[in-house]
């Protein structure tokens, strides 16, 4: 697999059309998913998706496999391109700071067994998160990415990502309790 990726990268550096097609087929769905997490408008998401690969092919020469895997590197480009679009469109972000809620609402179930009602409430609460927060929790819980990889994608440091995840989780349970 690693050897195949090396060949793919080499071919991409030589601007081989077949390599481009292979890149899109292999990594396209994951990249599109990442874009969709942040960009809700379908047309915008497709445009960003195209921009991601244009940018990736332009800067494939500077890709360093020691820093991150090819998929993480593509996700990083996708994350930043999507955030640029989101910021330029200025969506309404629901602000829910710690001070907005009473301290008694801070407790939430740890290691609780799956509970249908809580899951549904969490699904609704997830919609109230800012796009970049949704992307971070999705990378952690759905893509099973390591905190170091998430930090690489977001351009942050692992400790910051750890505290962000913890804060977002608390925020979600606060939203549930508030309702």
């Amino acid at each position, binding site marked *: 697999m690693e050897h195949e990726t090396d060949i793919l990268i080499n071919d991409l550096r030589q601007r081989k*059309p077949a390599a481009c097609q292979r890149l899109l087929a292999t990594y396209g769905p994951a990249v599109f998913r990442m874009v969709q997490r942040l960009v809700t408008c379908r047309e915008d998401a497709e445009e960003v998706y195209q921009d991601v690969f244009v940018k990736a092919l332009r800067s494939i020469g500077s890709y360093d496999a020691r820093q991150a895997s090819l998929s993480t590197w593509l996700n990083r480009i996708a994350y930043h391109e999507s955030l640029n679009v989101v910021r330029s469109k200025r969506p309404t972000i629901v602000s829910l700071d710690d001070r907005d809620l009473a301290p008694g609402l801070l407790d939430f179930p740890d290691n609780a067994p799956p509970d249908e009602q809580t899951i549904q409430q*969490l699904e609704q609460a997830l919609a109230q998160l800012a796009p970049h927060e949704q992307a971070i929790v999705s990378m952690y819980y759905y893509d099973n990415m390591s905190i170091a990889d998430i930090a690489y994608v977001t351009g942050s440091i692992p400790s910051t990502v750890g505290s962000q995840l913890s804060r977002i989780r608390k925020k*979600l349970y606060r939203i549930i309790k508030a309702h």
Partner: protein
Amino acid sequence: MNELKNDNNLREAIGRREQQLPPMPADLNERVMKGLMEPETAAPPRRLWLYAAVAVAAGIALLIIFHLGKEQTAQEPVVAQQTVGQPAASKPTEAPEPVAAKPRQEEMKVEAPPAQQPAKKHRKVMRKLIELIPTAEAKSAHTAAAEPAPEAETPSPDYYPTEQDPFVAMAAQVEDIRSRGMALQQEITALMNN
């Protein structure tokens, strides 16, 4: 960190949410491929045009800078020649050539920092001119409409302008206009009285 990992409710909620995302359009990759192939052929002429434009702009900028620099170096000795306070009689052979004023420039450098000198000297010349104009006016008023007194044209002892001094030429013109005006005014007054 464990509570984060073991939050199965949240994991399940996110999983369901991700599955609700619409699938990628089947033809999207084809469209992207088309888009990726197009810029490769279109890029080189755009770049060439850009480089050419930048080169032309840089050339023009250099020419302007070079020309301005040349003008400045040609003007500096003239200013120095006009403002250095030395008697004209002590240097009778000195011609008003701008390049020949090199030693004077050196003198100026000793007096004040080079950046302040031209402005300072200009101010001094202007002050002298302002002093010069009212004196001539007063003298011409006293000597009724005749020719202006020769003393009025004599500059103050510490200023010896050369023939090419533009400020002196301008001052002479102003003085001439003023004296003619005064004479005309006196003639009109005389006619009115008669």
